[in-house]
């Protein structure tokens, strides 16, 4: 099981900022059996409580409803609209996060230390902020009377209560996950390798395409998936900034929240779809990536 191989996102890279250190790069050793460890039984017993706590509520969701119930509710307009909106908005968000996040992620490991720290903190901020804060901040910035919204409004563009607001809310809270993962990836690419290619006459763009990108594919993919997953679950910023309207701004988490107060069947069905989709996508990606790396 190499479940936790790719999200190397636990901390920012330090000392791998392209200052000549040979990065870990592609030195992953061929697969070996896991090392022996002592007291395996004790560790397993100690690991059980948290695993149980994490798994049982998800199991509970599935036990609480019957498949017939889920299928019956899956056809309801609320569920269909919410699923459709969630799929396309999170798709757009992920594409935007990758496109706009790539330059930021590429830049960060190359900056001087102090500036890098500042930028890393800026990128981390949306992750640690409560999403409701993000929602209020977006509203007073891009709302009709907001800092920038005033000008947009004058130009005839209103963002709040539209799917664009949903995407912006998701992008704000979720894009840092991609940037973080990708910058760790970029920071770990061996500088010597790139220098060698440059000596050989390769242009910067060619080096990026043929060396950096293949070497960081794992990090970029894992970052994109984390961003997608976070966007899919986004709730607080969306309900405040984008509002709640079926088919327009009511994503799955919003429909679950309002369904919890109105029609528990809808809430449970959407929860199950959300859990199942997330699980499937994560599993498939991990599978694909472990194949690609062997």
């Amino acid at each position: 099981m190499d479940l936790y191989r790719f999200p190397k996102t636990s901390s920012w890279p330090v000392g791998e900022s392209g200052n000549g250190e040979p990065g870990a790069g592609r030195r992953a050793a061929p697969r070996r059996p896991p090392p022996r460890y002592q007291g395996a039984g004790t560790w397993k017993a100690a690991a059980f409580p948290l695993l149980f706590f994490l798994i049982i509520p998800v199991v509970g969701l599935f036990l609480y409803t019957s498949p017939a119930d889920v299928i019956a509710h899956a056809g309801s307009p609320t569920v269909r609209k919410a699923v459709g909106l969630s799929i396309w908005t999170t798709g757009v968000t992920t594409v935007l996060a990758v496109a706009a996040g790539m330059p930021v992620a590429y830049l960060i490991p190359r900056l001087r230390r102090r500036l890098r720290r500042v930028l890393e903190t800026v990128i981390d901020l949306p992750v640690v902020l409560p999403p409701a804060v993000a929602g209020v901040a977006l509203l007073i910035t891009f709302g009709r009377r907001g800092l920038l919204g005033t000008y947009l409004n004058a130009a005839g563009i209103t963002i709040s209560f539209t799917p664009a607001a949903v995407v912006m809310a998701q992008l704000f809270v979720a894009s840092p996950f991609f940037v973080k993962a990708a910058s760790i990836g970029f920071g770990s690419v061996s500088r010597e390798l790139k220098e060698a290619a440059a000596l050989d006459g390769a242009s910067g763009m060619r080096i990026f395409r043929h060396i950096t990108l293949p070497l960081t594919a794992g990090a970029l993919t894992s970052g994109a998936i984390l961003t997608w997953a976070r966007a899919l679950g986004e709730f607080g910023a969306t309900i405040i900034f984008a509002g709640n309207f079926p088919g327009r701004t009511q994503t799955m988490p919003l429909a679950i929240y309002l369904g919890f107060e109105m029609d528990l069947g809808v809430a449970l069905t959407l929860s199950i779809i959300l859990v199942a989709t997330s699980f499937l996508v994560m599993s498939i990606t991990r599978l694909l990536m472990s194949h690609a790396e062997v």
Partner: protein
Amino acid sequence: MSNVLKSAAALFLIFSLGLAACSNSPAGSVRQGGASGASGSKAMQAVAHSGQGGEISGEILVFTAASLTAAFQAAGMVFQTNHPEVSVLFNFAGSQTLSRQIAQGAPADVFASADRKQMTAAVSSGRIAADAPVTFAHNRLVVITPASNPGHVSDLSDLTQPGLKIVIAADAVPVGRYTRIFLEKASSMNELGPEYKNQVLANTVSLEENVKAVQSKVVLGEADAGIVYRTDAAAAGDGAVQVIEIPDRLNIEADYPMAVVADSANPPAAAAWVDFVLSPAGQKVLASYGFIPVSKDQ
């Protein structure tokens, strides 16, 4: 796959939602319409009896509809002046959220709902006695616009102007349900055209999950108009919004029922609170926030 497993699963579901205890009601069973048929006067007598005599003290937790926020905070201050030994704590949220929380065992002493439906739901969960709820105030709807009135809304017919951005509450929220009743009345009485409801709903850009969220989006100028209680318009403060009245014949009269929770940890203090809200002093506080007091001999 036994009931044990199922109820264990249910417990964990509830647990993971951060709510205490359990309800064995299957999905959706709390959805019940209709009035509770509770006799107000009987409940009032019961309350009056239990509220009298003996010192009251301790803490009570009052689950309160969001539309009562300012009024109940003020009423709480007055109450505590007369009962310094009691501390009144409020949990403000949409009535539908509160009624779910109560059904799932949240430690409430009093439930003050913005409509009968959510009180009935709480009663059918078994935590409130059927004859406990008593109506303590009425409310009406108004249309509000931002102070600058960017949509140029000056009367009810303006709400059908194409392109207007209207924000109302979701159907699950009492004020959202009342809003639809008003729109229905306006269409069927043909005063504003038979298509009035559809036209207004077509201009609706968001279904907010409580009345204060509707108010905030209008105050911030995000929406051109919103439909809220007249008490919210009063609470928004001078100059924050413009108010367009809805005539009585199209309006609704929202009943606010309140009840002591059957398994309250502090029944004497909880009853004293209900008693106070129904007293002339309590009614005066509510009236000062725009609520319509209940008539004495109801």
